[in-house]
């Protein structure tokens, strides 16, 4: 299982690009932290998720 935004998801085996599509994110609107480090957009295709990985997917929202 992969921890995605704090929840266990069956994302192992997906590339990051694949998972973003699968889960329904807009890739252009998010940033990804992979196991504690920022994952550059160019690495989305080549990064394959495995069990125990931790993924944070964030976006902008309204704020002061």
């Amino acid at each position, binding site marked *: 299982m992969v921890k995605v*935004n*704090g929840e266990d998801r069956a994302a192992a085996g997906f590339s990051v690009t694949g998972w973003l599509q699968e*889960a*329904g*994110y*807009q890739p*252009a*609107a*998010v*940033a*990804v*932290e992979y196991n504690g480090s*920022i994952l*550059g957009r160019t690495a989305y295709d080549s990064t394959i998720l495995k069990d125990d990985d931790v993924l*944070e*997917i*964030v*976006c*902008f*929202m*309204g*704020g*002061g």
Partner: protein
Amino acid sequence: MEKNEEDCLVLGGHKFHSRFILGSGKYSLKLIEAAVQDAGAEIVTLAVRRANTKEHENILDYIPKQVTLLPNTSGARNAEEAVRIARLARELGCGDFIKIEIMRDSKYLLPDNQETIRATDILAREGFVVLPYMYPDLNAARDLVSAGAAAVMPLASPIGSNKGLATKEFIQILIDEIDRPVIVDAGIGSPSQACEAMEMGAAAIMANTALATAGNLPLMAAAFREAISAGRKAYLAGLGRVLSRGAAASDPLTGFLRD
């Protein structure tokens, strides 16, 4: 100011003509464009949050393109978390501006100056234009400037309280002593309060709740814009003579002087 000199707010080498920094929280995305327009804002703040797949609306689609985005680090409880959020914000691809906001107190939401100084130091080194939200303390402000802050953002009163310039005397000290723009952030509840801060010499005003809770948001945005501009002009013009009450000289002090 020289007559022909352009009056700009300069943050980390970037020039702005508007001195109204607009928050985008607590109101409908659909109102953002009108708010930006009527506020005349060139900088809009945003928060960074875990993306939700159920929500397909991207706030960036609602913000006019020429606007500079100022992501904040709200949610951070220490320097490390703020740094992490700042880096993610930059990865979202909207420039190098970051408003540091670190709170260890969920009741009053008061900023933690020490942690903010630490985060400023780290992020300024990484090339961010750092705008730290702070409690108006002179020593902390000096440390923030030394750490590389592009401005300081002291609170007028607790965040979201609309209570106005409760910290007025201390903000004045920062304005007098700090060689960076002093942007009054948090607690400004009405245009008259924004105007007062600008008359004191504040470089800009950041407001969110006062607009979000107004009956007519775009109209309030316009009111703030005019008040901020009026306060700025009054500051530049130099406030005039106010007759002091009952200050009559007793004995002359200069009678001893020889020609």
